[in-house]
């Protein structure tokens, strides 16, 4: 091959994928600007509309004369916490999807699709029922209990899934999806059982929570969920490269110097933590984790050091837009956000599945 350059086939134009301008240094400024626009729109619209020109005043940036107390109250204690929660959950759903796809070398992996969210949901629902019994129907349930239970449930589910789908150093895509399906069904049955045995109060709590609304957001909840996302972002420099190399296979990653078992453990804990936090607050919201990383890979390529933070921002944009739509299209009623994301995401997933059909095991 040393002296054979001339005989080499010339790069064909097919398969050349322009990683456009977006992939360069403009990527994050563009994504963040879009997020800012969506945030401003989300502040303005809603049951109590706040015209754009009154927003700076309500936030305390401009002449307080124009400010009404009502605007301030709506923005600071209702709308902004909800916006923050939508951003956090969207970011976590998308980036946990991206990490999971890297870990399983499978672009169709998504915590909601393969039962990890359901496992978290089952644990959370159990905690509602058990907690309700233990507090003797008197005190309100502490909110912190839900994320912890959901995290535990997600962690156990991810670990089981990994065990089931991995044999030696290979992961079967087909077994992975089918096992995920079975786990989701099992967790669904478990939740059904809980609903069956729950008393009225617990039943109301479960139903309310499973609808997956972002309503009822408070700053306290924001501060409870934010650390999970920060942990993921802090981990990106350490796991990003490893996830890239893992795409070639566990053996190859090891050959190239990655401590594969440690990488897998960190990835699983991150997936479980973020999925658990998202499930605890918003119920099972599907497809954000598939759609967002897939779109980004088309534009910026599959390298995880860019993909993970970019997924977080685009996930935030999409979920915030979806939540704003959810609370306005049928106002004053709210469309459950999980319904909305599934309506958009499921057809997208089908298209993706058809395009991936050539891949081994599908």
């Amino acid at each position: 091959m040393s002296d054979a350059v001339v005989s080499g086939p010339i790069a064909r134009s097919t398969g050349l994928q322009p990683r456009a301008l977006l992939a360069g240094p403009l990527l994050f400024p563009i994504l963040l600007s879009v997020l800012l626009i969506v945030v401003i729109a989300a502040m303005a619209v809603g049951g109590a509309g706040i015209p754009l020109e009154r927003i700076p005043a309500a936030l305390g940036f401009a002449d307080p004369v124009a400010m009404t107390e009502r605007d301030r109250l709506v923005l600071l204690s209702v709308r902004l916490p909800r916006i923050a929660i939508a951003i956090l959950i969207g970011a976590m759903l998308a980036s946990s999807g991206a990490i999971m796809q890297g870990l399983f070398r499978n672009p169709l992996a998504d915590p909601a699709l393969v039962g990890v969210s359901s496992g978290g949901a089952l644990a959370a629902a159990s905690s509602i029922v058990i907690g309700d019994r233990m507090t003797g129907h008197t005190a309100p349930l502490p909110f912190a209990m839900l994320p912890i239970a959901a995290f535990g449930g997600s962690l156990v589910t991810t670990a089981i899934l990994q065990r089931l789908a991995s044999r030696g150093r290979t992961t079967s895509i087909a077994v992975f999806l089918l096992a995920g399906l079975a786990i989701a069904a099992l967790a669904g049955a478990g939740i059904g059982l809980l609903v069956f045995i729950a008393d009225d109060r617990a039943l109301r709590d479960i139903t309310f929570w499973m609808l997956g609304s972002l309503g009822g957001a408070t700053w306290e909840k924001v501060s409870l969920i934010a650390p999970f996302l920060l942990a993921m972002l802090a981990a990106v420099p350490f796991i990003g490269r490893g996830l890239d190399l893992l795409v070639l296979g566990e053996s190859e990653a090891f050959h190239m110097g990655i401590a594969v078992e440690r990488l897998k453990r960190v990835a699983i804990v991150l997936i479980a933590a973020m999925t658990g936090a998202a499930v605890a607050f918003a119920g099972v919201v599907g497809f954000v984790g598939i759609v967002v990383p897939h779109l980004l890979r088309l534009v910026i390529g599959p390298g995880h050091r860019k993909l993970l933070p970019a997924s977080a921002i685009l996930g935030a944009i999409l979920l915030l837009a979806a939540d704003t739509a959810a609370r306005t299209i049928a106002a004053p009623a709210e469309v459950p956000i999980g319904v909305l994301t599934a309506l958009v995401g499921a057809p997208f997933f089908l298209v993706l599945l058809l395009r991936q059909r050539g891949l081994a095991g599908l």
Partner: protein
Amino acid sequence: MSALDVQDLSVRVGAKRLLDGVSFSVDQGETVAVIGPNGAGKSTLLRALSGEIAPSEGAVLLGGRAPQAWSPRELALRRAVLSQNITVTFPFTVLEIVRMGAGDRRGKASDAVAEAALAAVDLAGFHDRIIGTLSGGEQQRVHFARVMVQLACGEEAHGPGILMLDEPTASLDLRHQLDLVAVARQCAARGTTVIAIVHDLNLAALMADRIIVLGNGRLAADGTPSQTINDGTVSRVFGVSSAVGLMPQPGAPFVLPHRAERLRA
């Protein structure tokens, strides 16, 4: 000090012995081909040498230490491995894959190193292609370039390392098979130790200073190509009658199999 020492190596999976009391050592800069029939334990041997599996008995010493005693990162600077049948699910470009040879170190492989590796495998000008759109043989050459980058990084850190190849020519056309042999020999000339599993006995004879023949998990023969590739070994280990001759240039033996025989145990 030898680059690689294999002492009475046995690998068992359950009750099955995949390797049984194999011993040999390889000097720095030597080119060794491992040959043997299917199921002889060749890939298991390579996995044990690379540190992917630990010996059940005996020892593998790489630079004087068991591979498991090195951290994965340190080990990667001392040996590079090219496996077979690697599928890449995500749309990485050729250049991105080749650069992965630098592992997870912050300082990525320099463009010059990556370009040189791509040129060495006859894929200059392919950097922006998505790997999944390449043919099987082209993909194999991309991975070979990646392994060359890994070797280059290791060489920078600790001097020449060990290149381990698992049937590197399986999906290559004739020309690129010979090219790969040439590149491997160039590596060896610079001091890299090369250990390659090769199916084609003629290619093995052309490539290697020394041939290790495995049969049934045991060392069946170990020596220069002319010592190991002869009627006796081919018949005994592969169960094939053959005519063995000498290539006029460069004087390596060649094998012309003509009839399967009953394998003698």
